[in-house]
């Protein structure tokens, strides 16, 4: 019994604390999961083992696990065990790292689950993009509504390019802005989520063809992998947007896709995650990574997104 309590205390479970026991178990279980290597796909220890580890009852343990299943970090499979959902683990690991360099959102503050933040050093990443031939050639650019590329949207408008930006959560379709038609003094505002709708024209998915061919796709991300997988915030908006544009024929597998991220968002291990779309180039605050992916998201993957 004494031994059990010691182990539990090491894991951060304090039987005398105010916080409910199941919440403490949930939080230390989360820590254990995040400490595992990303390539570790083995199931969590069995229920009796975990009960012993935390020194708690089956009911308490199950409540903690149910919470984490609901949050998308674990999946409990009847008869097989409890597994970690890699994609969500990557998000959580990266969110921890990002909290050091991220800039708060005007609404969501530092609640990274709700938005892709700007970060210290994003300007350096933007400069790498602006030096590339894909950028120079691009007349029409799809830009994600991520805070990390706000200043790149401004650079595109300043260069007289046209940009297509989805509204946050795609709730009001897409906004199309023509840099060559905007007054110089309006461009900074037009590059923000708060301002873009004052200047741009709103397009529904059916109107996207009017934009013509999209020459370049630029996005932020929650995380990216070295093999070119884009991992978003969990709602998979980029996947949905890519799929719409793909079906309308305004993008194709040869359309260059650039992700702007901080170094801490680059995950160098293979992640068994379904990507939102496949990246060709990753620009960070310190480096430029050419992924050179030739494959595209498979049809079954797209269907799952739908």
């Amino acid at each position, binding site marked *: 019994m004494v031994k059990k309590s010691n182990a539990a205390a090491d894991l951060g479970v304090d039987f005398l604390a105010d916080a409910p026991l199941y919440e403490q178990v949930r939080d230390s279980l989360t820590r254990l999961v995040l400490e595992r290597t990303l390539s570790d796909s083995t199931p969590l220890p069995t229920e009796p083992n975990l009960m012993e580890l935390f020194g708690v009852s089956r009911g308490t343990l199950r409540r903690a696990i149910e919470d984490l299943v609901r949050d998308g970090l674990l999946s409990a499979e009847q008869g097989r065990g409890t597994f970690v959902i890699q994609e969500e683990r990557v998000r959580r690991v990266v969110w921890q790292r990002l909290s050091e360099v991220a800039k708060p959102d005007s609404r969501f503050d530092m609640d990274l689950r709700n938005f892709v933040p700007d970060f210290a050093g994003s300007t350096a990443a933007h400069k790498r993009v602006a030096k590339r031939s894909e950028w120079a050639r691009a007349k029409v650019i799809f830009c994600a509504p991520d805070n990390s590329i*706000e200043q790149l949207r401004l650079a595109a408008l300043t260069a007289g390019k046209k940009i297509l930006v989805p509204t946050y959560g795609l709730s009001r379709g897409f906004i199309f802005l023509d840099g060559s038609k905007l007054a110089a003094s309006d461009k900074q505002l037009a590059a*923000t989520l708060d301002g873009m709708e004052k200047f741009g024209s709103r397009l529904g998915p059916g109107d996207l063809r009017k934009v013509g061919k999209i020459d370049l796709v630029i996005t932020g991300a929650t995380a990216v992998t070295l093999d070119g997988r884009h991992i978003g915030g969990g709602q998979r908006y980029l996947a949905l947007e890519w799929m719409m544009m793909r079906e309308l024929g305004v993008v194709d597998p040869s359309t260059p896709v650039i992700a702007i991220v901080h170094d801490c968002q680059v995950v160098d291990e293979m992640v068994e995650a379904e990507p939102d779309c496949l990246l060709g180039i990753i620009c960070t605050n310190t480096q430029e990574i050419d992924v050179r992916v030739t494959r595209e998201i498979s049809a079954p993957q797209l269907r799952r997104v739908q």
Partner: protein
Amino acid sequence: MSMALTTEQYREQIWAELSKVARPDSRFHWDFSSFICDFEGSEKCSDQLLELAAITDRGQRQIFVTPDNCLEDLRYKLIQRGIPFVMTTYGIVRGFYRLDPAMIPASDHRYAATLDGFDRYAEQLSLCQLQETEKFSLLVTGGSAVSKNGVRFGKGHGYFDFEWAVLSELGLTDSSSVVADVVHDCQFVNEVMPAEKHDVVVDWVITPTQKIHIDQRSRQRGRVFWEMVPGTEFAELSIVAELRDIQNLGPL
């Protein structure tokens, strides 16, 4: 009949009307429970506000504005006129900021008036720093609805009531501080509503077509009702810890 239900019914009715004139938020879309929306004609509200003596004759006193969307045009016009103001970040999460128009290039005036642009130019003030500044001559907020005796039933979070309480605890409001509420005409309820002890009753209701003065000379000095804070979203705010520190109250 319970009052809470009536308030709720008013809110539903007003939201239905408001959705016809409201402008969506860049993040929250039409979810009125998450933000105070801008609406058609808010520009006329700011023009009327700028004529209030609390602005024109403010002397050295300051102006406080909430981060509500219907006040974006007011913020823009204050910046254009070179009038500094104090604002909180959304949900008071990062506390109070002061925006000095002298720091903003003319091309960015509109940008700085939005929540996305505000951060670039505004300077954060700790409560200690804020305490060193002048008292407020005018405090402007938006709201979901306001009654004819100046009782706001906002979006339900009570942010402005709390901001008023904190500023008052810091000695930054007094009997000559004027409180104005900017709403669309459909948000004005021509009925007397009871005020709770923490409600800030307002002196002015400003709509696109009306400027209604309400006599609030008997308004009590604001204060934080600490017993009401635990368990609310205010409990976790950094300014709460800081205020308790200033007042030697210890942690909540």
